C-alpha cells in the first residue's frame, strides 16, 4: 500500500509537471520562433498543456468511472469528476478550429509574401 501511495504521488507530480512543461514549451515556441508553422504548433502545444492540466484536476486517486449502477449508489465519493473531461472535449474542438483557421491564414500569408517567416512579413506596423 505504501508503494502504491508513493507511486501515485509520482504520477500526480509527473502529470502536473508535464502539463506545465507543455505550456512553457508552447509559449517558448510562440514567442521565440520565427516560422509561422512553428508558431501554430506552439499554440497547439499550449492548448494541449492546458487540457492535460484540466483533466488532471478532475482525477481522484483510485477513482472509478462516474456511472451510478445498482448496488453502488454510494460510490459518488470515489468517482472521477466528469465535468472537466466534458469541458476538455469542448476545448479540444475549439483548439482544432483555431488551428485550422491559423493554418489557412499561414497558407494565405505564404502565397501573399512568398515567405513563412514572421520577421520578413512587415507590411503592417506592429
Amino acid at each position, binding site marked *: 500500500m505504501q508503494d502504491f501511495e508513493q507511486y501515485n504521488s509520482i504520477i500526480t507530480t509527473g502529470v502536473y509537471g508535464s502539463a506545465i512543461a507543455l505550456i512553457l514549451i508552447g509559449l517558448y515556441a510562440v514567442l521565440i520562433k520565427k516560422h509561422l508553422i512553428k508558431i501554430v504548433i506552439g499554440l497547439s502545444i499550449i492548448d494541449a498543456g492546458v487540457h492535460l492540466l484540466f483533466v488532471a484536476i478532475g482525477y481522484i486517486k483510485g477513482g472509478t468511472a462516474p456511472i451510478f449502477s445498482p448496488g453502488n449508489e454510494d460510490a459518488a465519493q470515489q468517482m472521477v469528476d466528469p465535468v472537466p473531461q466534458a469541458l476538455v472535449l469542448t476545448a479540444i474542438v475549439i483548439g482544432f478550429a483555431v488551428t485550422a*483557421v491559423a493554418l489557412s*491564414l499561414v497558407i494565405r500569408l505564404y502565397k501573399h509574401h512568398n515567405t513563412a517567416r514572421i520577421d520578413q512579413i512587415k*507590411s503592417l506596423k506592429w
Partner: protein
Amino acid sequence: MVISPVHYIAVPLLAAFTIPLLSKYIHKELARIVPGIVLLYSVFVSIVLMMQVSEVGVISEKIAGWSAPWGINLVFSPFSGFLASLMSVVGFLIWLYSYNFKKIEQEQSQKYHILQMMMVTGAIGIVLTGDIFNLFVFMEITAITAYSLTSFYRERDGAEAGFKYLLIGSFASVMILLAVMILYTQLGTLNMAEIAQKSHLMPTSIKATVLVLFLIGFGIEAEMFPLNGWAPDAYSQAPGPIGAAFAGIVVKAGVYALIRVIFTLFDIHGAYDFLIYGGLITMIIAETAAVAQTNLKRMLAYSSIGQMGFVLIAFGIGTKTAIVGALFLMFNHAVIKSLLFMSGSYLTYNSVSKKISALAGLGKKLPIVSILFGLGAFAIVGLPPFSGFWSKLYVLTAAADQNMLLLIMAILAVSVIEIIYYFRVVSTLYYGKQEEEIEVQKPSINAMVSMLVLGATIIVVGVYPDIVTNFFDSAADMLLDKASYIQAVLTQNIN
C-alpha cells in the same frame, strides 16, 4: 410559439448549417437573404423579450431541462437584454448595409454573410449566458469568425492582420481557460450566479490570480491597453462593415465580459480603480495615436479603442450615474462608430491608400454620405444637439460627484484631441483641395437606408434622451444589484 432567449442562439446556428445546402440546391441568393431574415428575427425576439423583461424583471432560461447550478442557463436581464438588443439591431443594419457589398462575388458572399451572422450570434451568446465556460465557448465563436472576416479580402494585408489577431486571441483564450479551471477547482461550479454567491470562500490570493487571468483574457477582446495591438490592423484590413461590427458588437461583448467578471463574480474594490487607470491610459494613448494616423480606418480604430477606454473609466467610477453613462456610451459608440465606418468606407471606396487626404473635396460629390460622416464626427466628440453629448455629460457628472477632478480634466483634454482629428477629416471633406481624380462610388439604396437609420437615431436620441435612459436606468440597477441576479438565476429554476 413562445419566444425565449434560446432563439437568439438556436436559430442562427441552425441557419448557418442549412444556408450552404439551401444556396446550393434551391437558389444562390438565399445565402445572403437568409442571414438577414435571421438577424431580423433576432431584432423581433429582442423587442418581445424587452417588453416582457420590463414586467417580469429577469428571464432565466434553463437549457435542456437542467436547472441552474448544474445545467447551462441564459439570463435575459435588463442589462444583458439591452446589450443583446443593441447587438441584434446593429447586426441587422450591418447586414442591410453589406447586402450588395462591393467586390464580393457570389461564392465569397455566401461565406461573408454566414460569418457575419455567426459573429453577431457569438457576441449575443456572450452577453446572455449564465455559465462561465459557455461564455468562453461563445467568446471563441466570436473570435474565430472575427479572424476569418479580418482576412476576408485576399488582395489586402488581411491575412497578416488576421494572424496577428489570432495569436493574441489564442493567448486570451488560454488565459480565460486557465481562469475557468482555477475557479472550478476552488468552487466546484461553473454557474456565474453560484460563483458570485460563493466567491468569498476563495482565498484572496487565488481570487486575485483568477481576476488577473480574466482581466488579461477579456481585456484583449475589450481593446484595453496594452492588449490592443490587434485592433488597428484588424479594423483597417477587414471589409468596411466588419469594422463597424467590431466596434459595435465584438468589443461590446468583451467589455460586457470584463464588467460581468468584475461586478458580479468578484467584488474586489481594487478592481474598480484598476478599471479607471486602465481605461485612462488606454484612452490617452489611443486618442493621441489617432491624431498621428493618415489612414482613415486606422484613425477610426484608434478612436474606437479610446472610446472603450472611456467606457471602462465610466464603469470604474462605479456609481449609478456613472454606469448609466457607461451604458449610454456603449449605445452611442455602437451607433455612431458603425455610422462612421459605414460612411467612411464609401468615402474611401476607390482610393487605394485609404488616406484621409484622398477625401478632399468629396463633400460635393457625395453630399449625403459626407453629411452623415460629419454628423457622426460631431456626435462622437460630444457636441450638444447629438446623442454623444448626453453620455459624456453623465460620466462627467458622475466623476464630479466623486470629486475626481483630475479625471475630469483628462477626459476634457482628450475630448479636445478628438475634436482636432475628427474636424480635420471633416474640413478635408469640404474644404480640401483635390489632388488625384478618384471616381466616387454612389452608395446603394440599402446601404443608404441603414446609414440614414443610424443617423436619425443619433439626432432623435440627442433631442429626446429620455427614450433610452429609462432602459439604462433599470440596466444599471440590475448590474449593481448582485443579490437579485443570484436570486433570479438560482431560485427560478427550482420549481
